[in-house]
C-alpha cells in the first residue's frame, strides 16, 4: 500500500475540522477571561490543516503542478475537494491568527465560517471515494467513517485539555465523542454488511468477496483493534464523563495515553479502508477465486 500521504491528509483534515468546531463552540459559550486553555487549540487549527495539505502533495507524481488540480471544478469531485481544502487552510490561517493575537472581535464569526468550510471539505472528501469502479468503497460507510472521525477528534480536545475551561459545554463535547464513536462503530458494521453482500454482477461480487476475505484473514486483528480503540474506547470515556467523573481524575499521562490510543484506533481504521481496495492494481488481479490471471509482469 502506498497511500500513506492520503491517510495522513484525510485524518489531519478531519482533526483540524474537529478542532475548529471545538474552539468555536467554546468561543461562543465561555467568557473571554476563561478562554486561555482553548487558545492552543485555536492556534493549532492552521498548522494541522497546512500539514494535511502538504501531505496530500506527496501523493502526486508531479507535486509542483498541483495547482492544476483546480482545473476541473465543474465536474471533478477531486478538484472540488482540493479547492475546499485550500479554502479551509486559508480560513484557518485567519482564524488561528485571531487566536494568536487574542483578538476576540469577529473570531466567533470566523470560526463559524471555518466550520462550515471544514464540514464541506470533509463531506466532499468522502465523496471522492464513492466510485463504482472501487466496489468496496462505494457505500455510505466511507462518509460515515470520515465524518465520525471529525466529530470524535473535536469532542476529544476538551478531554485532552482536562476540560478545565470553566463553564464550557462539556455535555456537548461528551455527546460529540459518543456520537463520533457510535458513527465509527456503525461505519465498521456497515462496511462488513456491504462487503458480505452478493450482488448479481460477478466482477463486483468478486471484489467485495476479496475485501471481506482480506479483512477476515489478513487484517482481523487490526480490525479488532480499530473497533476496540477507535469505537468502544471513546464510548467508554464519554459515558464515564457523562456519569460525572471529572476529566481531571484521569491524570495528564492517562488522558494523553487515552487520546493517543483513540487516535491509533482511528488511524488503523483509515489504513484498513485503504487496504480494502488497491485502485492502482490491474483488472485481473483478484485472488477471490472467481477471477484469476496468469500474466506475469513484463
Amino acid at each position, binding site marked *: 500500500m502506498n497511500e500513506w500521504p492520503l491517510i495522513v491528509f484525510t485524518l489531519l483534515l478531519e482533526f483540524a475540522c474537529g478542532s475548529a468546531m471545538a474552539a468555536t463552540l467554546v468561543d461562543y459559550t465561555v467568557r473571554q477571561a476563561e478562554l486561555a486553555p482553548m487558545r492552543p487549540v485555536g492556534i493549532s487549527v492552521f498548522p494541522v490543516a497546512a500539514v494535511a495539505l502538504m501531505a496530500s502533495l506527496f*501523493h*502526486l*507524481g*508531479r507535486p509542483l*503542478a*498541483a495547482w*492544476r*488540480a*483546480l*482545473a*476541473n471544478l465543474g*465536474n*471533478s*469531485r*477531486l*478538484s472540488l475537494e*482540493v479547492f475546499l481544502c485550500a479554502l479551509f487552510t486559508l480560513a484557518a490561517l485567519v482564524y488561528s491568527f485571531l487566536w494568536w493575537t487574542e483578538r476576540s472581535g469577529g473570531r466567533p464569526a470566523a470560526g463559524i465560517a471555518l466550520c462550515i468550510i471544514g464540514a464541506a471539505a470533509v463531506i466532499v472528501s468522502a465523496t*471522492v471515494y464513492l*466510485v*463504482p*469502479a*472501487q466496489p468496496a468503497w462505494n457505500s455510505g460507510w466511507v462518509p460515515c467513517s470520515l465524518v465520525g472521525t471529525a466529530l470524535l477528534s473535536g469532542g476529544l480536545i476538551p478531554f485532552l485539555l482536562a476540560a478545565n475551561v470553566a463553564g464550557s459545554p462539556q455535555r456537548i463535547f461528551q455527546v460529540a465523542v459518543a456520537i463520533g464513536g457510535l458513527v465509527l462503530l456503525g461505519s465498521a458494521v456497515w462496511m462488513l454488511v456491504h462487503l458480505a453482500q452478493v450482488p448479481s*454482477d*460477478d*466482477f*463486483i461480487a*468478486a471484489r467485495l468477496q476479496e475485501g471481506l476475505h482480506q479483512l477476515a484473514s489478513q487484517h482481523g486483528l487490526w480490525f479488532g483493534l480499530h473497533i476496540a480503540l477507535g469505537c468502544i474506547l471513546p464510548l467508554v470515556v464519554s459515558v464515564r464523563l457523562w456519569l460525572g467523573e471529572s476529566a481531571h481524575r484521569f491524570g495528564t499521562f492517562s488522558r494523553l495515553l487515552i487520546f493517543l490510543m483513540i487516535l491509533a484506533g482511528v488511524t488503523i481504521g483509515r489504513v484498513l479502508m485503504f487496504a480494502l481496495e488497491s*485502485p*492502482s*492494481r*490491474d*483488472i*485481473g488481479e483478484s485472488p477471490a477465486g*472467481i*477471477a*484469476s*490471471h*496468469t*500474466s506475469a*509482469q*513484463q
Partner: protein
Amino acid sequence: MSGQVGFYIDTTRCINCKTCEIACKDINDLAVGLRIRRVHTFEDGEFPNVSVYNISISCHHCEDPACVRDCPARAYTKRAADGIVIHDPVRCIGCRYCSWVCPYGAPQFDPRTGTMKKCNLCIDLTDEGESPVCVGACPTRAIEVGPLSEIGARPGAVIAIRCLPPPEMTKPSSRYKVRPEALKGLIP
C-alpha cells in the same frame, strides 16, 4: 473514419502469446511493470465444468469515460471526430484518480515521469491511416479497430463478459467475440 471507433477482439483466436503487449510496450517505451495493453487469462468454474479464456484489454475509449469526467487537471479529452480518449502528459499531475475511477485499470502510473500512461489508439499511426501496433503485431489477427457501428453489429460481438466490470459503468467502445461460457450472466 467518422464516429466512435473501438477495438474488436476475437478472443477465440487469442493464443495468449502477448505479442500485442510487447508491441504496445515497445512503441510507448513503457517501464517495467506497466502494461497499457495486457492479456489476461481468466479461469472460471469448478471441476469438471471449468473454462479458460484470454482477454486482451487496453483503454476502451468509453462513450462515457470516467477519466475524462473526473480528472481534476483536465488531462483527458475525448476527440469529437472519432471518440478516442487522449491523455495529455503535460497537464497530468500524477494524482492517479483516473486509475481509481476507471473500472478497467486502463490509466497506469509511470514513476519515471510522475504521470499516467494510457492507450491513445496509436493516434500518430491511425491519423495516417495505419493500424495501431497491437493490431499489426497480433499473429492470429485477433485484434481489429473499426467504427463502433460496424464492429458492434458483427454477429456475436459483446462487451458484457464474465470477470470484466459491468459495461454500464462507462459504456466501453470495444467489442469482443467470446465463447459462450465467457458471457456475463451465464454459469459455466
